[in-house]
């Protein structure tokens, strides 16, 4: 099963909020994937063990996996577009 990670400053609140929401949306669309919230301080470790990275911050370096915009899931603006991108990446 493919793994999606969401990172924030503690790996607790914002990232888990987005992760829970994305997991719910994926379930509604019947897409199977694991969505985990992680600590951005340890992103270098987590990035090696995922298929998609949903970022809350503007990425400053290149990552080996596709990066999506997590703010869209927080504000609701542009969320459907990011969700479609995510579903395509998980197919």
């Amino acid at each position: 099963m493919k793994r999606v990670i969401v990172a924030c400053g503690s790996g607790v609140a914002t990232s888990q909020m987005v992760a829970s929401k994305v997991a719910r949306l994926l379930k509604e669309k019947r897409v199977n994937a694991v969505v985990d919230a992680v600590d951005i301080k340890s992103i270098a470790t987590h990035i090696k063990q995922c298929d998609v990275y949903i970022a809350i911050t503007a990425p400053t370096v290149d990552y080996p996996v596709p990066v999506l915009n997590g703010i869209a899931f927080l504000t609701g603006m542009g969320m459907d577009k990011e969700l479609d991108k995510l579903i395509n990446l998980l197919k």
Partner: protein
Amino acid sequence: MELLQSIVNAVLGLGSQVFLPVVMILVGLLVKMKFKDAFSAGLTLGVAFVGMGAIIGFMFGFISPAAEALVNNTGIQLTAIDVGWSPLASIAWAWPYAFILFPIQIIVNMVMIALNKTNTLNVDLWNVWNKILTAVMVVAVSGSVVAAMVVGTIQVVFELWNADLTQKQVQKTTGIPGVSVPHSMMMFAVVLNPFNKILEKIPGLNIDVDAQTLKDKIGVFAENHVMGFIIGTLIGFAAGYAPVAAVNLGISTGTALTLFPMVAKLFMVALSPISDAAGEFMKSKFPGREFYIGLDWPILAGSPELWVTAVLLVPVMLVFALILPGNNVLPMGGIVNICLVAPLLIITGGNIVRMVILGVMSTPIFLYVGTLLAPTITDLARTTGTYDVPAGQMISWAGMEMPVFRYVFSQASDIINGNFVGLIFLAVWGGLWFLYVKEWNARNKEL
């Protein structure tokens, strides 16, 4: 009133790990969650409490003897263990009146938007617990739940105003349009502002520092397990432990600091559906209206300056904790002091030199307010039956959000008991706020 008191006592008697899941299930059903989902969310909350209690018990198991050995070996007595924000959040949620702050935040925000008093719609309902912690401190000083709710309301208003004032700078720092940060930690910038103005006048301090490179080099120290290991090992050596025992203490501390956020995540898993529903509800009430969406602080976490300063301030806090007279906090879980560096980032516009100087200057405030907070928060943990704290020891948080605001307003709440000293604090706060608004109004014209 007596009836209310006995209900509250009966509820308290249940213990937070039973009482809060029940509240959670009821609130879940209220926002039209399926029973199955509401039940699962409620149970998750109970699991989170018991899980957090298990780690706190585990932590005191090795830190209590270490703190004792530290006293015997060096004479340094620090009995308030800094557990960081996540156990504090859970203790705050266990306060019997905690859930009242939820509708307060939502209603105050919606009224202010309707009256054009703010442009921020705060969908970050997780941090309602910031208001709860303030309320708990107000009750500790004034004994009045009503005063606590009034101060909670005042905090919501200031948070939204601060989010509006700093929105342009947040956009410049993060590159994310249309969002603002109403998190209470940002309020510390009100205190930092005049000192930042003075430092700005010193020409030698406006050096460019390559923060990204520095962060790549020292950022690893901010990781929970690494920081925990270092702090624990240092405490072990200071306590006169043999090297193997000191390293053992280091790994145990690293374990506790790694597990805290893992368990804290469960609180968010439980709260997330309700938080989502409330956010959607608020947005649906103002169709077509443009506003900034208020988000939690981690949107700032992409700035390398934040992490570099946080790591550089770690030894500063350790040294202060040892030498400051009157300090009782042993820094551990809150030593990477986000609640200081995030407002520093915004008020200085990311100037590392000024961030570090101001950070050193203000670290003692965090330790002293942490010392004051310890008896209150430990008492709450014990009376709500949330966590067992060994006798002679206390829980605290060395890096609490907006320590000055909380101190000022909790002291001021004692006015209702005829103690008017707090008025002086309020006047000072008012003066600082006036300067702060003036500063941002000037800056926002250029941003």
